[in-house]
């Protein structure tokens, strides 16, 4: 199982039946592959659809039906298409049970940075700031470290996406929950030692004597 699959499978365990969930572009999108059997989850794409499916068969793509990255998708029976004001009324209004977003950094207060690296890359916040402000639960799905550099840091060095702390951080090494007291290490990825996680994490972590392994 590669790093991304570990993350996606673990995040999928956070899904709940009959809820509305938004998946960010990139890694978070993979979560949709691992919806627990028998569970009905309504996925929202913020460009304007609830209930989308995989890319249609060749020759059946519709230029008026794509995901937020512009890739072709299909619509499932019972889908709902809507405009951007409605989309963000759903997001900001607390109608999303959960959003899953990629991250550049998370700090000890649980704050997320994921939309720009000053002087290097300015993607724009897109819908991320609204998603972090408005979703009931915000789950960050990201690699634990980038090119040897820690992404879980004492204090953000990148511009924050929101002042609101995220609910959970799922990486290829660990599951970490931000709390008012600090970051709590909840789970280790299969076969990953505590020391490895601590070495790859720049922020202080709190943990019990026996941190369980993820069940994937």
């Amino acid at each position, binding site marked *: 199982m590669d790093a991304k699959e570990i993350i996606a499978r673990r995040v999928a365990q956070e899904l709940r039946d009959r809820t509305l969930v938004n998946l960010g572009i990139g890694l978070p999108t993979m979560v949709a592959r691992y919806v627990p059997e028998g569970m009905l989850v309504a996925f929202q794409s913020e460009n304007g659809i609830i209930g989308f499916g995989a890319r249609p068969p060749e020759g059946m793509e519709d230029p008026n039906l794509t995901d937020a990255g512009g890739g072709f998708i299909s619509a499932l029976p019972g889908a709902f298409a809507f405009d*951007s*004001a409605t989309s*963000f009324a759903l997001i900001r209004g607390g109608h999303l049970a959960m959003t899953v977003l990629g991250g550049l950094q998370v700090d000890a207060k649980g704050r997320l940075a994921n939309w720009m690296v000053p002087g290097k890359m300015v993607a724009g916040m897109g*819908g991320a*700031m*609204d998603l972090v402000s408005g979703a009931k639960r915000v789950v960050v799905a990201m690699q634990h470290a980038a090119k040897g550099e820690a992404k879980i840091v004492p204090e953000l060095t990148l511009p924050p996406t929101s*002042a609101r702390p995220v609910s959970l951080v799922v990486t290829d090494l660990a599951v970490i929950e931000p709390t008012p007291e600090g970051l709590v290490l909840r789970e280790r990825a299969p076969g990953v030692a505590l020391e490895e996680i601590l070495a790859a994490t720049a922020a202080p972590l709190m943990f019990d004597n026996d941190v369980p392994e993820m069940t994937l």
Partner: protein
Amino acid sequence: MRKALTADEAAALVPDGASVMIGGFMGVGSPHRVIAALAARGARGLTVIANDTARPGHGIGVLIDAGCVARCIVSHIGLNPVTQKKMIAGEMEVELVPQGTLAERIRAGGAGLGGVLTPTGLGTVVEDGKQRITVDGRDYLLEKPLRADVALLHCYEADYYANLTYRLTAQNFNPVMAMAAKIVIAEPDEVVPIGVIPPDHVRTPGILVTHLVERPH
């Protein structure tokens, strides 16, 4: 409704230096024919208000490539390296707005609201220069309405009155922009007789649409 315009005629209605709302999300639901005509006529100094600048060579990216845009107010430029390059080189001003805030600001502009209060952006760079207002113990940012000289929309069907429908994820910013500009130009995929679109399926009433572009040949 008067006769439909060609894309070139529509582009001629957009003066240099105008503020222009353009529908679309990564080019999906953008008025591609009018955009091409606007680039072809060499428009200059436009302020573009849109979700994003799409990709180079596609959608609003065509206007960026052609140097038509002096300033843009968008939520995302991550997939258009040309926009990023021009911004960093100081050739183009880019104001980044959270996507939901952008939608509400345009809606407020069209709905006669003086602004809306949103929690989005609190404690981030988005707060810079904005008023923070406390309502019942919770903080919000006051976000001001946006309006434009011209709105360029894509729609799915238009009838002879210019009643519009949109299709699937090609709706996005088009309906709110239809309310928020002095001149509203809609580019349809299909034109249908009056009565073909039932009253409950119309999304933008023709009375808001100043000009309709002819259907593609």
